[in-house]
């Protein structure tokens, strides 16, 4: 009887022991993903920064692998877990490769846009003098420069999308800074204006041929003053215009050089002029007055502002820029030569372009 009771105790003890053993561990061989988890964690962290959807795909596969890992009880389930870990690793590697390739492309694109913006700003600065709207131009160009610095700063800090956006802003502003210059170029290309200028030049040269007199033709776009005698060019000088560049003169104070046919009405030397020597022109002529009246009536010029006056060809040039209040400036030595050739009442024709 005692021996039977002892056998039952051992059986119960074994059951308890078995239960305890189950609670503490089942003794099956597990696959060991410890080498994979840190790499997958790093991959997910990197993906979250730039490709969050890719990070989610990898996370889902990792969750499946962890679940498979937790369910390992035998060799077959261990194989399932291994395959799940492999799938997660392959997915992470693919996602990272795509992100890195996209990042490399974005870096190249950002740099290209930054360089292009820098070129546009430089071009805007070159065309500043011809724009005729110095303040507006300078404002846009300055804003473009700040955006360009932003783009370069963002590129350095690794925010490539931000750098691209800032570079595009800089380019837009530089483009706006060139708007005045582009309008001038469009005006110079206007066929109707070109025909008018060509006719004016032809008529002036005809006067020179017919009457055997000297005439002057100023080509604003080329910044050249040409002297003709008997219809043939005898001199050409570099010229500097009003600081409004190629804009046509519309009213007093606009700092534009007028276009039209004029005559020299006076020659000034010595103390008569602060610009070394000067030839005074009869601006405004009838055409100028008529145009001015029309604009006044249309309200396109300020009220109470006249057409302007005191337009001259004078010295003190050689500034390499358009700087006068509307006059045509030559170097002093060129003024000396000019005065040898042209007397009072010399016809002077100023055109947008002779092309």
């Amino acid at each position: 009887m005692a021996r039977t009771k002892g056998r039952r105790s051992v059986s119960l003890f074994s059951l308890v022991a078995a239960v305890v053993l189950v609670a503490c561990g089942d003794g099956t061989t597990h696959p060991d993903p410890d080498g994979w988890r840190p790499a997958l964690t790093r991959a997910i962290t990197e993906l979250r920064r730039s490709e969050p959807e890719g990070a989610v795909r990898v996370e889902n596969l990792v969750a499946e692998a962890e679940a498979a890992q937790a369910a390992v009880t035998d060799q077959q389930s261990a194989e399932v877990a291994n395959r799940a870990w492999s799938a997660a690793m392959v997915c992470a590697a693919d996602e990272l490769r795509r992100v890195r390739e996209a990042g490399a492309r974005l870096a190249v694109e950002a740099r290209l846009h930054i360089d292009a913006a820098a070129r546009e700003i430089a071009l805007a600065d070159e065309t500043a003098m011809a724009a005729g709207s110095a303040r507006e131009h300078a404002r846009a160009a300055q804003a473009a420069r700040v955006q360009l610095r932003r783009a370069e700063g963002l590129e350095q800090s690794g925010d490539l999308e931000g750098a691209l956006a800032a570079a595009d802003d800089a380019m837009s502003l530089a483009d706006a800074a060139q708007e005045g210059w582009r309008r001038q170029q469009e005006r110079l290309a206007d066929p109707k204006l070109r025909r008018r200028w060509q006719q004016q030049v032809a008529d002036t040269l005809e006067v020179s041929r017919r009457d055997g007199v000297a005439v002057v033709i100023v080509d604003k776009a080329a910044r050249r003053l040409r002297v003709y005698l008997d219809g043939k060019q005898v001199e050409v000088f570099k010229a500097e215009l009003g600081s409004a560049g190629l804009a046509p003169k519309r009213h007093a104070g606009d700092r534009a050089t007028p276009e039209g046919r004029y005559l020299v009405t006076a020659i000034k030397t010595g103390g008569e002029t602060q610009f070394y020597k000067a030839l005074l022109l009869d601006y405004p002529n009838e055409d100028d007055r008529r145009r001015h009246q029309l604009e006044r009536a249309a309200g396109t010029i300020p009220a109470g502002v006249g057409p302007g006056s005191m337009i001259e060809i004078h010295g003190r040039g050689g500034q390499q820029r358009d700087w006068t209040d509307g006059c045509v400036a030559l170097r002093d030595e060129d003024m000396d030569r000019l005065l040898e050739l042209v007397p009072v009442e010399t016809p002077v024709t100023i055109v947008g372009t002779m092309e």
Partner: protein
Amino acid sequence: MMTSAMRWTIAVVAVAAVSILAGCAKAPQVEMDAAKAALESAEAADAATYAPAELEAAREAQRAAMAEVEVQNARFVLSRSYEKAAAMLKDAETAAEDARSAAADNRDKAMAAVNEAVESLSTQLAAAEADLAALAACRRKPKGFAQDLELMRGKVDALSGQVADLEAQVAAERYLQATELAESIKPEMSAVTTDLTNARTKLGC
């Protein structure tokens, strides 16, 4: 009739069963709630902007802790142990608190730095405008002066607009974006104010 041996065996089994069942821990709900609350607090403190690395570390710690919870949840009920998960959740909570603290510090620093930048740029702008006025009133006006003055006015106009944009960013509490804009404006402002000072010196205005 129950013998003493039977009673002893039943008692041992009962004790063992109770011990085992007691060892089958419940999921660490208190620690999970605390870690989640700490992370939400860090996110509310804009740690994503001001302490992104610390926030990501906190998120990662919480993910790892919850993964461990899931691992245990997937185990046979009598073999679960949440001790490791509870410790990981505690670490995650600490990491989130660190992220919140770092975010607050960094935000304060960014705010102080950008306010200082705004003040400095505003002072320089006022000086530039005064220089422009002095140049406009200058008796000595060399050739091309009018155009040069217009160019400088345009530049100061642009910088004035950009300082206004900067102030708007600060008012909207976008301190990092404001810092980045301030750093872009500073060298341009310096160049323009230097040009104006040099012009005044040259003309004796």
